[in-house]
């Protein structure tokens, strides 16, 4: 079986101008959403308290709100979580009450409705810890990018490194933008997913770059654009198949993995789709526009033994 017919040759790079417009529009929307709407940050980053309670039967949110109201939690945000039996309550830090005590009181208030209520989960994050996490998350992202920049720079060439990082930033921004645009909660697992997207998208990009390098050496004639186009075409089925299998499992995770893992799976799905597109278009186009030529990738004779080259 084949996804693409044998000998398929698409003029992918010829449409790179269009791709640049498309990416620019996506990036603008993403940035706009992040700036204008902001991220719906989870308590991992903002600090706060979250209580998840399961009732033996489906319960009206109004009943829960009323119970919380009577116990002084007038500003609690109440919502169903997964099923109508499960209720998720978010509490802001309150004056005059110990933060660690907050969740216990809230749960007792909710237990007041029926004593069968079962405590599923409590998360309390102090404001200080939240701030640190945000900072660490940003740093982690930066370190990952720097590490990758160095590795790709060493294994290929600096323009490829820059090209792959442009593609990564593109993917991360759009994934994060997606969460801002649709106001999906951005919590710690989602951040982990975004970091995994970096790894995944790069994986794709590297495979394409590897082909480009190989073809530059093999095809003695041909324009840069043509060679890159050929390389992208040769790796296209692989890119689509791997993204396909990855999406398959991610959709399974999204549908069956439970409510807690939803955001995580969603971030990866968005990231994989964008990452696939970006490794075809963004990374390669960036390399073209930075003017890579055959001479840049020809192995220097002396380095032959040092660098592990593709035969």
């Amino acid at each position, binding site marked *: 079986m084949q996804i693409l017919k044998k000998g398929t040759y698409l003029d992918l790079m010829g449409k790179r101008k269009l791709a640049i417009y498309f990416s620019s529009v996506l990036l603008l929307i993403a940035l706009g959403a992040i700036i204008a709407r902001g991220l719906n940050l989870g308590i991992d980053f903002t600090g706060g308290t979250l209580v998840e309670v399961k009732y033996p039967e489906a319960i009206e949110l109004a009943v829960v709100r009323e119970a919380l109201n009577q116990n002084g939690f007038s500003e609690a945000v109440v919502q169903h979580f997964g099923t109508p039996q499960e209720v998720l309550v978010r509490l802001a830090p309150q004056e005059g009450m110990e933060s660690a005590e907050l969740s216990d009181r809230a749960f007792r208030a909710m237990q007041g409705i029926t004593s069968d209520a079962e405590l599923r989960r409590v998360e309390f994050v102090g404001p200080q810890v939240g701030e640190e996490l945000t900072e660490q998350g940003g740093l982690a992202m930066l370190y990952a990018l720097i590490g990758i920049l160095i590795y790709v720079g060493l294994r290929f060439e600096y323009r490829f490194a820059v090209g792959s990082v442009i593609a990564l930033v593109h993917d991360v921004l759009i994934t994060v933008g997606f969460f801002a645009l649709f106001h999906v909660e951005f919590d710690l697992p989602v951040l982990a997913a975004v970091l995994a997207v970096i790894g995944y998208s790069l994986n794709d990009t590297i495979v394409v770059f590897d082909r480009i390098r190989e073809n530059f050496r093999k095809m003695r004639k041909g324009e840069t654009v043509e060679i890159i186009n050929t390389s992208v075409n040769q790796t296209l089925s692989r890119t689509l198949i791997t993204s396909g299998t990855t999406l398959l499992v991610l959709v399974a995770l999204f549908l069956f993995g439970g409510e807690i893992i939803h955001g995580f799976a969603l971030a990866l799905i968005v990231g994989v789709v964008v990452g696939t597109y970006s490794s075809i278009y963004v990374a390669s186009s960036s390399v073209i526009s930075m003017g890579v030529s055959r001479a840049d990738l020809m192995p220097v004779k002396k380095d032959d033994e040092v660098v592990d080259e*593709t035969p």
Partner: protein
Amino acid sequence: MVLVVVLLGALYALPNLFGQDPSMEISATRDAVVDQTTQSRIEQALEKLGISAKGMEMQQQKLLVRFNSSEDQLKAMDHIAAALGEDYTAALTLAPDLPDWLIGLGAEPMYLGLDLRGGIHVLIDVDMESAITQAAERYSSDIRTLLREEKLRYVRISREDERVVVKFNTAEKRDQAIELIGNEFRNLNVKDVDQEEAFLVEVSLSPAEKQEVQRFALQQNITTLRNRVNALGISEPSIQQQGVRRIVVQLPGAQDPGKVKEILGATATLEYRLADTEHSVEDAVNGRVPPGASLYYERDGRPVLLKKRVIVTGNQIVDASSGLDQQSGSPAVFVSLDGVGAKRMRRMTNENVGRPMAVVFIENRTTTRMVDGKAVKVKRKVEEVISIATIREPFGRRFQTTGLDTTEEARDLALLLRAGALAAPIEIVEERTIGPSLGQDSIDQGFASVMIGLALVMVFMAVYYRVFGLVADMALVMNLVLIVAILSLLQATLTLPGIAGIVLTVGMAVDANVLIFQRIREEIANGNSPQASIQAGYEKAFSTIIDANITTLIAAVVLFSFGTGPIKGFAVTLAIGILTSMFTAIIGTRAVINWIYGRKRVQSLAI
């Protein structure tokens, strides 16, 4: 070799197929021992409830009681605890139900994280600023003693934040003091900071000493917390340092976050003081507190005047237990003092027979409150007089204290006194509690997604690459077995994001095979023979696979170093998955494909 690895992998992954029994671990807290009688007491308690245990085993001073369901386990918990009394603790746990030969091989199932097995995770911040101020306070009293002993007259000694300032009236005395203090306390910085007419010496902690104080405070707090957690009766608790001022406490299976936080965070201690009977309490209430005395209140709000001098403090208590006072039947704490404390107590009680002595209950609480959108730390010291009793006869090492409201309170106080005081105040800055049912749901859902994802990918590969696809499917299953085996062997913590990492690996692991197979197809299209195509396909794809995987590994390493708990689990499974998938997808499939196609001349490949 491939075969050996697969067999070993399968062996060590095997324990995960066996179920885990909800169980209870019974251990003795103090003087008591776990033995046959304990076992029969539990059997009786269970019989009354109508629950039958699945089994009971003795293991190193502990009794493991297995149940058929977690409902039975939870129902039995309270009753067993009540039946055994205070000398034993019962902790909920999961015990793998393994045959003996597997245990003999050292094979264990994967270690589940708190988010999967349920339990409480608490991150504790140690108030280092207080630790330093307390140290400065200690030094100021040491310096006072030193100057007195050396008969060097000073005007005033005061502690200002982290410094101690001593005032003298001549430059000569000031210089003498600098030399004296400098010689006696080498870890302090001493300098003169004269102001106008005043000769001042400023003493501060050297950076090394500060670090030492903080290190000690952290260690001491960890020890104290460990004692407290042990007394709570939780199996496999973990208490670890994180960074320079944080402590992570993980309590698998713990069910009551309110109680846990109360015990962990409490800084309750006792002080014994003589009551001041010479002065009027009314005057003190109106603001005229006599020197040498302080005003306190009893639990019912009545004011009392106590001498400032403390006879013994909680630090001198070596053991404490709770019980009932034999005369009044009210809850009491039985206290044993150390040598120094006992001596002081004996002397004081000897001199003051017939006078009232008070027990002060002291609790420090640090809380973070939001004021105008900013987090502000508030410290509150609660001091209450819990009992005043007349000293009837001198006593020393062992005695009892009454005045507590409930037996529960007496038990908690005894626990705290026994576990020792915290060296520096702490604050809970993060808490995550996962109920057991949520954990089980997460396991089930995670397992379902792995299986469904695996099935989808396997069907796709088989359809797309036919025989080669089936080989890749074998590699995929093998990969999964290896991941589970390595996780079990390393006893690395498996978390929900960790399961997600496995799911992701399943999707990405076929990538290496896709790369190889596409290459083989290309080679065949170029007119190469099947054998040559296989050879070339594997060789050409190799460096691509390595490059692509190393970059993903970089991301996994960054994730690991940044992440906490669950995220670390994701990084671990992702990294292990990358490594095992490279093995199975390159070496594993090669072996199988050579076995299928290697020995005969083939005209075409089913790819």
